[in-house]
């Protein structure tokens, strides 16, 4: 069974249709890159999959492990293993990173009928996971993303992913705004989490992330549709030629 099956998905924000019929299949262990120009609908796709309330699904179907994903509340999606690394991670003053992660970790355990983690065991687990993003324990006492630099916010998303161990991770422009060191740390973090039963959808504007995280498939989104799919070499072609030549591939009527 495929991990994720998107069939002719359409979605809008307000009166504006943004996704105009997306179809995509992701199998366990695969890494799919979604590329495309600004405004093509890449981030919308990522957020619709996570259940962002700003978007309305107007048609199509999304099956996650055979189940209707769109019927699930955002928290149920997360509990079943869907994780969105936000393009703009949200600052939560007053909630420490440690508290937030433990709350999320325990909710996911609870949803599986497991007991809450012993606080000491959780500290040990955190210590392990912090290594994934090359961080010390100090970060855990800071408020979630509050006053973090752009790079720290993205690292924090990867740390959350490492702790929550999703089956399907959707990375929304995780590379944007990162300097080269932060990009390396984030990309290596992702690579450490690659596994045969874990799939990734990476939304990115630039090819450079794909030098670090090599995808199995590359899809180009333009005007709310996937206009071209290919292997990792497609990313290089985009890097060389830009996105303009693809606009012609978009069906008539698409932006």
């Amino acid at each position, binding site marked *: 069974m495929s991990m994720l099956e998107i069939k002719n998905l359409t979605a809008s924000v307000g009166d504006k249709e943004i996704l105009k019929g997306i179809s995509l299949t992701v199998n366990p262990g695969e890494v799919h890159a979604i590329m495309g120009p600004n405004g093509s609908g890449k981030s919308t796709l990522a957020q619709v999959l996570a259940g962002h309330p700003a978007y309305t699904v107007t048609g199509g179907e999304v099956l996650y492990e055979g189940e209707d994903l769109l019927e699930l509340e955002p928290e149920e999606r*997360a*509990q079943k293993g869907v994780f969105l690394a936000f393009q703009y991670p949200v600052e*939560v003053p*007053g909630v420490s990173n440690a508290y937030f992660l433990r709350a999320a970790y325990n*909710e996911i355990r609870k949803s599986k009928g497991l007991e809450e983690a012993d606080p000491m065991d959780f500290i040990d687990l955190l210590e392990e996971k912090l290594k994934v993003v090359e961080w010390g324990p100090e970060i855990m006492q800071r408020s979630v993303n509050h006053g973090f630099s752009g790079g720290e916010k993205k690292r924090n998303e990867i740390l959350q992913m490492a702790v929550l161990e999703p089956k399907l991770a959707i990375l929304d422009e995780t590379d944007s705004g990162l300097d080269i060191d932060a990009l390396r740390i984030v990309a290596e973090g992702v690579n450490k989490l690659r596994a045969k039963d874990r799939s990734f959808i990476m939304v990115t504007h630039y090819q450079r992330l794909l030098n670090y995280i090599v995808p199995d498939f590359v899809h180009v989104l333009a005007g709310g549709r996937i206009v071209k799919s290919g292997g990792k070499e497609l990313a290089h072609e985009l890097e060389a030629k830009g996105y303009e030549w693809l606009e012609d591939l978009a069906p008539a009527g698409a932006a």
Partner: protein
Amino acid sequence: MTAVAERVSAPAWLAALRAKGAERFAATGYPTSKDEDWRFTPVAPIARAEFAPSAPATVTAAALRPFIFGQAEWPRLVFVNGRYDASLSTTGSLPAGMTVSSLAEALASDPSLEQHLGRHVAVDVTPFVAENTAAFADGAVVQVAPNADLGLPVHLVYVTAPGTAGASHTRNLIVIGQSARAALIESYVTLGDADTYLTNVVSEVVVGANAWVEHVRIQRESEKAYHVGLTHVEQARDSHYRNFTFAMGGAISRHDLHVRLNAANVEALMYGLYLGRDEQLVDNHTTIFHDHPDCRSWEVYKGVLDGKSHGVFNGKIFVTPEAQKTDAKQTNRALLLSDTATIDTKPQLEIFADDVKCTHGATVGNLDTLMEFYFRSRGIPAEAARRHLVYAFCAEVIAEVAIEPVRTELERLVLDRVNE
């Protein structure tokens, strides 16, 4: 109202002070909505109740235990229905430099009180102060010697016994000596969760030169009761005073915090947190007098209002022409959890010096939907997410309290409320 006065064999100055209060209160009565300072806080229910002085009562140590926090060695003064109860208090081993007593006792034995009592709070500042001055039965006197570093806070606990239906007029006097370091906590609590009564408190706080003082006020009255308090602080040069005012009880509650920066290079930090639900009305008025140059005041008040509750915040800052280089910042943030909760918030800055930095900001909002989605996207259900976010909103200001066990207690109170 005068029934309690005769309990104390009053020195002449005190009799005169009380007479002044009585006279003033007889002239004004309780404020009405025509009074600008009480426009959003109708106290007619208090006037209508015509509370007699509350009767003396006793409570057991066991009944009081849920309201005691911190460390066993903290000195504690307990007042029941406005009267000192030595048996519930722990004043045996006070830190060096600290003296504590009940006001009723001190008035009989300590003539130095005349220098302070009623000297800092004008009798006519509010009608409730006038009434309090006429009618106070007792209260706490805390004095800290110059250069003393107490190490332990003193906890003043004012408990209303179950079944009380009267008024307790409480008067506190806190005098911190030069270069001393001290902390005090006031807790207003009840053992009658549904009782209707009045607590009317006036506290005068004198902060000596170069002293450091933390002052926390926790108001947990019955949600059917009325609580009116005024705290007046006088700060001498180079002193640091930090106040945290927490309110979660009372059908109507009102606290006035007046801080006079009475010399140069003084710093005052004022934090507040209030929680309203059902039909509670919770009012905070703060007034800062920047009378001298090179002083700093920093103020953050936050409120969480649910149900049909109503919050009022008024922040006055007066900067005299002499008070150059004043640095004053005021922030009021209210979180409305329902469509029927309301807040009236009003900054009031009157600045007569030209070289100053004075800012104010007020925000009123609902829970941030993006934050809520962020929690949900990590597997935390919507309802729990909202609880976490309300708690976080409160925790951010609680974090400003310096004494750790007080922070823990405030966090517990907020968590209990949020999880109800």
